[in-house]
């Protein structure tokens, strides 16, 4: 079984490579193109099934560069589920390229998988960069100018992360995460440690589009295709959060070097995300800010630097990855602003329900996946006495829910616009996308109700990182 552990990664990479080659060399006949998204979604689900079956085996690979543990199992399963769902729900007529549109999310998922099973700093960085590069490619298909901005900003973020990691390596004397944790147990928090951690956290905040560092990611997601937006908002942020969780676990013996900074970032993201979501009228921008707010909750869980908090962050990250990746894909073209969604509840009931649940989950509304995750983070914050951060998080969630109610009103209560007045088309109905939307609704609802085993696995994941 140990040899099967890397099969999901192999499947994902092989599928991405095949899709890129097939697109370039025109291997796929036009008649077969309509079946391709479904087939790739099945491949992702197959990889997920193998991960769930074989992923429980603990082991190390490539000389300790990759580690398979419960954390990796959880994060990899979550991202594979997110990608499979996104392929199923997206309106492919709104995408710029079928082959690249299928390949890049797979590569981004591979990046998250590498980061999730990273045993050292190098693999962490590589996974993050792979996910971010895939996002740049997706954005460039429609908006090269925004892709360039994303590339430059991402380059700065990457430089910050890389410089921080290099200094961290120099200060601790090892790049292995487990050894680093052991070394830090006998270390004192020093400026030499605090500065690199500051750099890394700043870089990750930019990558995760945390407020106020979302200045490029969110415009880029607004200009990209629906799946591209999902990639920027969901998978890249999930990769950054995965890296942050692993790093925080390694640095947990000296929490004072990161907790204050992380606390400020989390508070700004939670409140800023909710306030910005309330202020904006564009549905996709609203979705993006809701995502920024929820990733702030993930960061808040890390402030606790205990197993319960990191487990809650991981649990929430799963819900976030699915909702933030699939949300824009469900929404489809949103160039027409809020009126473009008018009457969607009548015209596209399954997609409207999926979009409503995605937004409500990102806002933290009960009884959906995001609420359960945020509640678990809140419980961890209470246990550590961080009531100020908890109160700010609740404020952000209240603002987010109010913002979401605005979009729900447009979808369900406003009458549909006449086709002539509609500035952008509603998503095209296909059997796959309708099925995908229903499946997405089930996943978002079931994540909360089946939260006991999922949170239990997240707990094991946090324990695998050495937290008690």
């Amino acid at each position, binding site marked *: 079984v140990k040899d099967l552990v890397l099969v999901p990664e192999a499947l994902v990479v092989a599928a991405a490579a095949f899709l890129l080659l097939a697109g370039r060399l025109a291997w796929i006949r036009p008649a077969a193109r309509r079946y391709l998204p479904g087939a790739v979604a099945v491949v992702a689900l197959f990889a997920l099934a193998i991960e769930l079956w074989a992923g429980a085996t603990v082991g190390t690979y490539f000389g300790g560069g990759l580690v398979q543990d419960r954390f990796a199992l959880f994060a990899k399963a979550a991202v594979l589920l997110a990608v499979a769902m996104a392929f199923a729900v997206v309106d492919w007529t709104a995408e710029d390229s079928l082959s690249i549109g299928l390949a890049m999310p797979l590569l981004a998922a591979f990046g998250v998988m590498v980061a999730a099973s990273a045993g050292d700093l190098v693999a962490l960085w590589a996974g993050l960069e792979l996910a971010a590069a895939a996002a740049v490619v997706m954005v460039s298909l429609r908006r090269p100018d925004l892709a360039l901005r994303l590339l430059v900003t991402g380059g700065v973020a990457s430089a910050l992360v890389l410089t921080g990691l290099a200094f961290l390596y120099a200060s601790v004397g090892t790049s292995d995460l487990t050894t680093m944790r052991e070394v830090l147990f006998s270390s004192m928090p020093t400026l030499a440690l605090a500065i690199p951690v500051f750099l890394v956290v700043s870089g990750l905040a930019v990558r995760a589009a945390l407020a106020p560092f979302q200045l490029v990611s969110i415009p880029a997601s607004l200009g990209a295709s629906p799946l591209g937006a999902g990639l920027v908002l969901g998978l890249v942020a999930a990769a950054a959060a995965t890296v942050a969780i692993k790093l925080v676990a390694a640095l947990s013996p000296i929490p004072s070097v990161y907790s204050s900074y992380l606390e400020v970032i989390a508070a700004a993201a939670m409140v800023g995300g909710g306030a910005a979501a309330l202020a904006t009228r564009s549905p996709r921008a609203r979705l993006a800010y809701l995502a920024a707010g929820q990733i702030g909750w993930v960061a808040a869980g890390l402030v606790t630097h205990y197993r*319960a908090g990191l*487990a*809650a962050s991981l649990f929430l990250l799963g819900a976030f990855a699915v909702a933030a990746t699939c949300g824009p894909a469900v929404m489809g073209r949103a160039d027409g602003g809020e009126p473009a969604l008018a009457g969607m*509840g009548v015209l596209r*009931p399954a997609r409207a*329900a999926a979009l409503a649940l995605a937004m*409500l989950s990102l806002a933290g*509304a*009960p*009884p959906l996946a995001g*609420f*359960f995750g945020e*509640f*678990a983070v*809140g*419980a*961890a*914050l*209470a*246990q550590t*006495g961080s*009531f100020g951060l*908890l*109160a700010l998080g*609740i*404020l952000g969630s*209240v603002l987010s*829910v*109010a913002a979401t*109610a605005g979009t*729900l*009103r447009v979808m*369900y*209560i406003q009458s549909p616009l006449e086709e002539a007045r509609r500035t952008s088309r509603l998503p095209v109905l296909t059997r796959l996308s309708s099925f995908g939307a229903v499946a997405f609704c089930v996943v978002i609802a079931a994540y909360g109700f089946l*939260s*006991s085993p999922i*949170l*239990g696995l*997240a*707990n094991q994941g946090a324990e695998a990182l050495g937290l008690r």
Partner: protein
Amino acid sequence: MLIAAASPTPTPVSVPGAGIFSSPLLLSLTIWVPVALAIAIATMPNPRGRYDVLMKQIAFFTNFGLLFILFIAYNQFQTFLPTMQYEEKVPWLQAIGVTYHLGVDGPGMVMLILSALIGIASVLASLGIRERVRSYFCLLLLTQASVNGAIVARDMFVLVLFWAAASIPLALLVLGWGGPRRHPAAWRLLGYWGLGTGALLVGTMALYAATGGASFDMDVLLKTAISPRVQVAVGLLMIVAAATRLPLFPLHGWARDVYGEAPIGVAVIVAGTASRLGAYLLLRTLVAAEPAAAHLLAPLLAALAALTVGYAALVALRASDLRHAAAYLALIPGGITAFALAALSPLAIAGAVLSFFAGGLAAALIVGVCATLSDRAQSRSLQVLSGLAPRMPVLTWLLVIAGLALLGVPLLATFTSELMTFFGSFKTQPIGAFAVAAGLGVAAVALAVLFRRVLFGSPNPDAPGVSDASLGETWYMALLAGGLLWVGVFPSGPTLPGTGTPLFDPGLVNVMAAGISDIASPYAGTGP
């Protein structure tokens, strides 16, 4: 009457029909049946509104079925058992100590019966809905499920879940089917209730942290001894949460717009049950759980209650809009309930529990009657509405009953609850009792002015045409008025003459007694 109300039947009663229905999932049914049928309504095909009537029927029979089941459960309720009944307990989020724990005691059963009655009234009041029928009834059923969930929750996580969940469908109902000022109404509702949810959540987390962070179960969270400082902090947060719902002055900002703008069925459910949850929360988390904090915070709560009653009565007196006047009058029962809880004596606590039911029906009735009257008279301006009694006999009677119910006149359930409240509070909160009584006096003047102007003044020849209530409207208001009369006349249930054997109703006062003795035991030395 008072003796009958204060002293429940001394022996457990056995009612014909008891034992014919039993389900270990009884309380879950009250939550998940409405949810399942809301999903069914949301997904069933409805080409060009062909099945609109069917959807209304589904909503009605869902509520009717729930009332039937709850009536049997009410009859089977062990009236002298101090523990929770119909309990369900399943581990849920074990990692953080969350259980799916449901249960009811006497006050919970009173709230459930109220919720079922209000549910039917709300659907009957909504039969006139013509636009987007599917969405309306789907959201209405979700609201009812949330309210029922908050009532039966025995785990603070479950309580927060359902407490918060109610606000979204309600806001959408106001936004989608409300009057011209529906937008500010919905946003105010979301804002105030969001503040309340935040306070409840922070209070819950503080309790969780103070009790060791092992469980959210109320049996652990509310029964573990914690420091007085934490008790007071949590108590204050719970008062804020309750004050946004009930609502109490100065957190009542949503009430005028929501009661004034919401469709009638929604206004009825908000005034009848969703807002009563505030008082229910105070009973559970402050009075029953934190006696030290309750003693310290009682003057504050009594002051808020007295201010609410006085302010609401004064503003109702000066109102120029019938629905706004009704909105302010509907705050009065909540103020009285909060005052009863602040009195902290066994009799006043029993009065508070009875006023969950009586106050809920009275508030729903005044809001519903005034909204229906405005619709039927095609105007809500008190400058226009005048001399309607001859042309609206049914609505006139119902408005008079609603007004008398607010004031607590004999033969209505509010009389019993207010009497218990005042008798139980004059010793512990004399100033507050005087202030609330004075507020009720002003409310009586406000109602008298309203009746004189709207019902018995000289008819306005320039007013639009009027018509009396339709059959559906009469039924929903009669149901609410009937509930008030029934409990007012038979607080301990009707019995076979000369035998003392209960007929089909063990009596609300007997049922609510289960659990009250436990709640009131820390305050046994105070008051009558």
